[in-house]
């Protein structure tokens, strides 16, 4: 499943970054890497833009970019 499929409050573990360069390096430098935990803090009403917590860093990204990140949802 992809990061953009998670809902508000959901958490997941990153499985793979599918993005191409230079987006991939950008995501990596923000801390999106295999095995890291992400949490969807918020998204806009139409799920256009996401506010993601990755290791205590808040990162905003779009649906298009979130789609490039494969995650496994953590069931609470």
């Amino acid at each position, binding site marked *: 499943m992809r990061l953009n499929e998670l809902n508000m409050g959901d958490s997941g573990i990153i499985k793979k*970054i599918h993005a191409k360069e*230079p*987006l*991939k*390096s*950008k*995501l*990596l*430098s*923000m*801390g999106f*890497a*295999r095995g*890291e935990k992400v949490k969807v*803090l*918020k*998204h*806009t*009403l*139409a799920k*256009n*833009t996401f*506010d993601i917590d990755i*290791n*205590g*860093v*808040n*990162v*905003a*990204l*779009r649906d*298009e*970019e979130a789609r490039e990140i494969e995650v496994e949802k953590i069931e609470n």
Partner: protein
Amino acid sequence: MREIKIALVGQPNVGKSHLINSISGATLHVGNFSGVTVEKKEVEFERGGFKLKLIDLPGTYSLHPYTPEEKVTKDFLINEEYDLILNVVDSNQLQKNLVFSWQVADLNKPMVIAFNMYDEYSRQGGEIGTNKFFKLTNIRAENVSAKENFGLEELFEKVIKTYEEKNTPRIYYSEIVEEEIENVKEKIKECRLDKRFISIRLLEDDEDIYKRIHEKPWYVELVSQLKSSKERIRIEYDEEDVKEIFFEERLALSKGIISQVAKKARRETLSEKIDKVLIHPILGLPIFLFVMWAIFQATFSLGAIPMDYISAAFSEFGNWVGGLLPNGVVRQAVVEGVIPAVGAVIMFLPNILILFLGINLLEQTGYMARAAYVMDGVLKRFGLQGRAFIPLVSGFGCSVPAYMAARTLKNPKDRLITMLVIGFMSCGARLPIYVLLVSAFFAPEIQGNVMFAIYIGGALTGLVVAKILRIVLFKGEPEPFVMELPKYRFPKLKALLFDLWVKTKMYIQKAGTFIALASLAVWFLSSFPRADIVKEYSVKIEQIKSSKFKVPSAEKKIAKLKEEMNRKILENSYIAHIGKLMEPITKPLDLGWREDVSLLAGLAAKETVVSTMAVLYGVGNSDETSKGLIKIIRKTMPFTAAVAMIIIVMFYSPCVAAMSTFYAEVPKWAWRIFYTIYPNVFAYFAAFITVSLIKLFS
């Protein structure tokens, strides 16, 4: 005295600028938004018998640059001469920050780390053992707080010690990677850069490094080694992308070292709580619009309070100067030309300061990034991206920094589209023109709303134009949007006040020099030729004066004649000729030659529009400056002309300074020409349509 040249690097929002301010005692601009440090700042100071020279490099997330600013930092680190790297790290985000530190450490230069914002971190229960850190990495580090001003002196002691010992970092990756680094390193012969650094960067596909070495004689041999080394790493790590492997290596390194040297802080939840409201899926947008509306209301209503006093002060000043100077052309030029014009411009200083204060507050508190988040969905629909919001909003302050802020957009198309519509965001210098026209032609109760409508109307039009440009001229994928939302921070009063002081100084300087000269020129052009008219009227005035019959109304008559004379002079002046040449074009907009000339002057600087009108409407003679101007234009300008003028000012070309910034940022001539022409054509037709509609319905 020996000089230590220090490259100051760090990720965005780690408080680098603030650290600099805390050293030198001078406060510069400190913002909370990613990439506020665009220009190169240098700070010099003395410590322990050395001259320390800090070069502040743009905040960067990685040595795989993404934005042009990040490229600036990388190029500097690779190409320039410096003695030491001072890496500023946000203690609250160790893991992410240290990944970058390891990349910098690879350069194998003497290096010191400052764990900044340590005050916040320790308040949350966090601790960092810098001695242990030094033992593990051979990098001296100090816990500092630029905000509470501690640790800085100790930091500089460590900088000097590291410099004297030429102490370089010892950061090692896992065994297999290290082996391959060594294998590649052996093939590297002579090169200015550190060999280990080159082999690491080559292994992680750094094209900038490839470009530097691909003409070396040993390149061919190196490439085959590189290929087999990469292959081995790929197989061992079961991952195609070696760059990603290196990233994961560094991440693991961060985690390992953090677990050994740092005590974890409690999670800070304040920002999250604030965000629950401010970027709420439904409430976020209305809240943002309300914030912008409030700023404009304050700009207009609070800014109006000191106007009367400034205006009165300038007419007093004019009278005083008039008394000092001998009668003649010089006195006239100063008292009737320069002083009222400069006064009319200074009067708007309060408005401009309030607007800038608002924008700075948004930046410093960290709300600006949220605004970009909230706006992204909207901006995307117009072919722009959330990040474009920053240059666009900066455009409300001044187009010059806005064009430069557009550098944060990496994709050239996105950047160009954004830059082409920045001019539609009304800059601070245009505010006086709106204030003048709106005060003269709209009821006081609705003035604030009209102002809001002007700003929002301009912005919306800009967005629509952006969409059209995207569809017609630039096809293709918009740039990705990945942006850090920094923590909310309390604004720093000192920084805010300093920034306002800089703006005030700049504005007054501009008013005192450029605008004074421009208004002098306008006064001259509007007062000459006049010999014949003056002769004709002085004869008439003399007749009344020398008349034997003491007419009680003689004084009045003379005053009336003088007024008539001034009007005649103006109507025959050089500037009137220029304006009259333009009249046929602007006739459909109900604009007179005075407005035409003022708008032309506005191409030099928007501030001169009001001062030119002040000169052309001859308010230099009246008791008050701008208050008088408002009265006069209310009487002489038709309502439609006022609306047309507002619309033209909203859309036509910005000032020369802004235009030359655009030219500097955009090298292509085709775009420069397009940029120079289309806003004016657009402004003309927008004004024409609006005026026609008003006439149709009234």
